[in-house]
């Protein structure tokens, strides 16, 4: 029982991470119908930014986190501006290929600059409050403060995002653009602006995920690829284009992966994500919650 509980906790943490990354994919897809392959790499850069903030610059972890978010938000907007915006009216194939190219560039840039060496946050830089303490749950299961923090942070950010999308003006603009860009434009919404904001928010959330994973596990150049694929599968599962779906999908996939790895076979961990992705697309392309805004491809 203890083991089961601990595995569930692992799954929730992973699910929170996936949710944070998945919303990035889903928001961008919802608004410009593009699968932003490079999003996983932004997650990875987020981890590296924070890592270098605490090691080379010697900043506190709590400062490194928002700095990383900011840098990634800028990065996301920059990528949109350079690579995707010029192709706004081009065939979808072109944009997709560009996204793949971007992912290649970013991943290998990281590999070249920082090498594939695994980097762990040095002990002195880790927020000791989180790392050192843990709660013992009934049954003997251990829940570290760090894990708890990740779960709570993810939930908090998701709620914040939801509020943003449904209760603010910019959120309304985002929903409008997702529904119909042309009409939104006619209504006086600067669509390029809104798209940039979408990228910024998605990237910032991805950065949070990156920093947390970097802290909890390790920082290395291919982390974006693996987590990214799973997060994308989560987004598809929840219904691509649907933010709540992404959150739900993230949690479900996280738990499924961890339980699969812990009880069945650790080797097929990532395969679970692929299988779910394929099955969902073939049998229920709209995902669990469907696209909250109409237009189908």
């Amino acid at each position, binding site marked *: 029982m203890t*083991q089961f509980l*601990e595995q569930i906790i692992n799954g929730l943490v992973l699910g929170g991470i996936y949710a944070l990354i998945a919303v990035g994919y889903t928001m961008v897809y919802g608004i410009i119908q593009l699968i932003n392959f490079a999003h996983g790499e932004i997650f990875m850069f987020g981890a590296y930014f924070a890592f270098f903030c605490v090691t080379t610059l010697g900043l506190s972890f709590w400062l490194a986190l928002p700095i990383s978010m900011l840098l990634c938000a800028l990065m996301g907007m920059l990528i949109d501006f350079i690579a995707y915006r010029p192709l706004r009216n081009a065939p979808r194939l072109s944009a997709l290929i560009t996204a793949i190219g971007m992912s290649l560039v970013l991943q290998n840039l990281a590999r070249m600059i920082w090498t594939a*060496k695994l980097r762990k946050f040095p*002990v002195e830089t880790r927020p000791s409050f989180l790392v050192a303490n843990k709660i013992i749950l009934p049954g003997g299961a251990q829940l570290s403060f760090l894990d708890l923090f990740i779960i709570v942070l993810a939930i908090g950010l998701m709620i914040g995002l939801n509020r943003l999308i449904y209760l603010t003006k910019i959120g309304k603009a985002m929903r409008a653009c997702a529904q119909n860009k042309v009409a939104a434009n006619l209504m006086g919404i600067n669509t390029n602006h809104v798209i940039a904001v979408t990228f910024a928010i998605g990237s910032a959330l991805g950065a949070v995920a990156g920093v947390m994973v970097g802290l909890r596990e390790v920082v*290395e150049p*291919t*982390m974006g690829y693996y987590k990214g694929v799973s997060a994308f599968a989560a987004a598809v599962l929840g219904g691509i284009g649907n933010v709540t779906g992404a959150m739900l999908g993230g949690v479900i996939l996280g738990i499924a992966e961890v339980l699969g*790895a812990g*009880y069945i076979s650790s080797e097929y*961990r990532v395969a679970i994500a692929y299988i779910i992705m394929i099955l969902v697309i073939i049998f229920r392309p709209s995902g669990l919650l469907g696209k909250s805004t109409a237009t189908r491809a």
Partner: protein
Amino acid sequence: MKTRANFSTISLVALVVMSFTFMSCEQKVEGIKIAVAGPFTGNIAAFGEMIKRGAELRAKEINAAGGVNGKTLMLVFEDDAGKDKEASLVATRIATNRNILAVVGHFNSSCSLAGKPIYKRAGIVELSPGSTNVRVCEGSDWTFRNLYRDDFQGGFVAKYIKNVLTDIQKIAIFFDNDDYGRGLKDGFTNAAQKLGLDIVATEAYDRDNTDFKAQLTSIKAKNPDLVFISGLYSQAGLIASQAREVGITVQLFGADGVDSPGFLEIAGDAADGTYVSTPFVFELGGSEAQRVAKAFEAEYGVAPDTWAALTYDAVGMIVEAIEKGGENRKAIQKYLASMTTPEKGYEGITGLTYFDKNGDCIKPAYVKVVHDGKFVPAEKQMLDTEM
């Protein structure tokens, strides 16, 4: 038609690029060339770094003493990133380069296995300073190694645990799902069971994985007295620290794949107390080993590790084969194949190396332990080489 003109120019460009590729081959310069193949990039690059430096130090010393038969010794480094797919490509690259006389490498067992048939087809010697999987030298007259095999190492670790770490009874094994990790796991499991130890858990991991908590939680539930990590330092480092985070407090034991300063870096405090089996320990080597260690430190600013030492010896062996056998691929193979007795063996800093009919050699294993963030020789060693 516009397309025609385009086709000509583009094709010309293509041809130019292709010819450049031809020319990218190592040009023949007066000298003796040996290839050194290893993981110079990738997440186990710390091995490659030591290998490179060990080889370069040896080459420097040889050239300073007059070179090989009066010619300069030149090393050609080929990176296989620790992946068997890259190793195959590297092997074809090396094999088709007629200027390269022999290969010191590869390092990872899966890479050496990948290179083996290609080197065999081409007829060029592959002398590995790091591959321990049992199959590496089988079936080819061209493959050799200057360290022990994993059936020996697995048995050694089991015996050490049984005889020295006497209160250990239940063991969990966490192994890397590649040739090395798997082969060593098998060797260890067989020996451990024969000695009456209990294997309570056996979990596999993928080298691309960075989150081991799911499997570690599973292992923890089985209550082992010791966790044996059959894998490489990067993942072992993560496993060590994550194991502590998950609440596994028992003894950790790693094999030679864990023997790298990278392990200490990644695991941090969690590394303390971990035992590691290894083919060589500098502190227990002879006077020549100490001299080399000092020279290495003077040159590179860090102490050499086991792999630097084995590579240092491997380069020396190839050079001896060239000087005493001949300056061509076949002669090198003949010479190495003739080193079948201790008298005809090679006395290097890692000990005496001589080969059996397969190209394997019998050499002792040592044990190190992590103490205060450094590897030190374990108090008790088991230096007999009987299985």
